[in-house]
């Protein structure tokens, strides 16, 4: 998986001009491109999750550092479709909260992250869910992520609270650890599966 990602990047980066930037996800049914916005308090590890996801493809011990707030990563699914995630990080500090709509506008996916050791960050995550329900695009795929799952002994938000809240709001829920890489790939694979497909995948099976 992911070996052909640079080639895929190029094909999906070249657009046919028919989609406008408002389109949450694009192109042919086999190669999706989707804008994913990350929301959550600062310090919950939003960018670490992405780093882990993007870096996971390389040698995890190497010092390849991607410090960027915008990253893209293509994953291949079992049905031979690929999904290119264009990941938009947002600043989590309270003083920038009012700017969030500029970022989630047109996003096909919102990943809302909290820290399982911080109840305040869970409250903040719920605020973002409500905000997106009100102002996000109606068919946005939302995921609630409890990060820092490796810190069991400091846990203050029970997993059940996350599960219940996500279920009530029709979201996907997962607990991750950017530190140990636990559930990071699962998170993105699950999101990829939940994306609305522009049209039916052709029945013909090309050799991969």
């Amino acid at each position, binding site marked *: 998986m992911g070996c052909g990602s640079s080639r895929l990047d190029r094909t999906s980066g070249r657009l046919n*001009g028919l989609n406008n930037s408002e389109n949450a996800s694009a192109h042919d049914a086999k190669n999706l491109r989707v804008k994913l916005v990350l929301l959550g308090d600062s310090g919950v590890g939003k960018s670490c999750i992405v780093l882990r996801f993007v870096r996971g493809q390389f040698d995890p011990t190497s010092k390849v*550092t991607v410090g*960027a*707030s915008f990253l*893209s990563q293509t994953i291949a699914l079992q049905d031979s479709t690929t999904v290119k995630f*264009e990941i938009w990080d947002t*600043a989590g500090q309270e003083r920038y909260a009012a700017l969030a709509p*500029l970022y989630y506008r047109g996003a096909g996916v919102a990943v809302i992250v909290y820290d399982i050791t911080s109840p305040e960050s869970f409250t903040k995550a719920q605020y973002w869910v409500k905000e997106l329900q009100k102002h996000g695009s109606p068919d946005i795929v939302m995921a609630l992520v409890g990060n820092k799952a490796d810190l069991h002994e400091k846990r203050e938000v029970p997993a059940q609270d996350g599960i219940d809240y996500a279920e009530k709001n029709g979201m996907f829920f997962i607990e991750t650890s950017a530190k140990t890489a636990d559930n990071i790939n699962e998170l993105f694979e699950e999101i990829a599966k939940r994306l609305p497909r522009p049209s039916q995948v052709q029945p013909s099976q090309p050799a991969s």
Partner: protein
Amino acid sequence: MEANQSVTFYDFLDRMRNPASLDLVRSIKSFIVSFSFYPANPENDGKKVQEFFLTMETAIRDHPLWAGATDEEIDSAMEGLEKYVMTKLFSRTFASLPEDVKFDREISEKICLLQAFLRPEHLDIPVALQNETSWLLAEKELQKINAFKAPREKLLCIINCCKVINNLLLNASMSGNHVPGGADDFLPVIIYVTIKANPPQLHSNLKFIQLYRRQAKLISEAAYYLTNVVSAKSFIVDLNAKSLSIEEIEFEESMQAARLANKATLVENPPTTFNTEVFRTDPGPSKFLDEKETKLKGGSKYPYMDAEAGELTVGDVEKLLSLYKDVVTRYTTLCSKVRHLSISKTDCPATSEGTSSLATELEETCLDANGKKE
């Protein structure tokens, strides 16, 4: 991005000179002319231009001159077209409404006030990211924005600025003394850099890119960076004491002090619309003036700042002389005021620091203007 962009632009013009492309040239010309029939209406104009780009893309794809062309070749033809059309329509589409001009001025004035006292700590920028050299580079990129008329090139200034900041974040995280914070780090720095740069006509430039850059190109990383500068603008517009890590009283006092200091340089002649006029009709060569203006509050008062000796006429002498006298008088007054200030510094430690650094800046500003005036 592409270094050979000017080559591809000439290639585009070349192809347009080919008799075979007469039909394309006709469509382009009549589209451009159609704009002179109606008053400016940015939203509508943007839509019209975008639709035109799409129509032309199809036309070019199907055109014999581009038979068998790759997607890259079509794309560079489209870049050429965008540049050509938007350069022709520039004065009609850039900062075309009085309210945009006004908004530009208000933002620029607010930034000018903020510049007088804002420090990285007010935005909680970690020390590891405080790098004057990188910031200056990033500022320079933003300040170049009015040197270009094509949306693509204006956007490139923004992208370049953001890339400089990205490199800074990257280096900070590689040096190991800073945990990468993604957007938590990036946004405060881009806001700070935008304030330091005070890019000319910020609002109009952003609006112009959003409306007229080919939509197929306003995606992905480019869109992300543009969004960050749009965010920075929006943050600055709404900025008050609560937006910063600063005491409300200190904020209000600093803003007031900056206002007074600005007034001091603006007393006699009220600000004219000279700058805006110049930018609107011809932002290209006025780059020098733009850069000047960011440092030089009230640059509008000195209309000869970007004049060449050859352009001056005898009729200008009177005006020049009076400006010269004006500058000298101000400078002398200011110097004596500054001396007073540094004396009073010891009496009033609470506020004097801010004021005196302001005064120094003013002094430099005047020196600068004076030097340029001869």
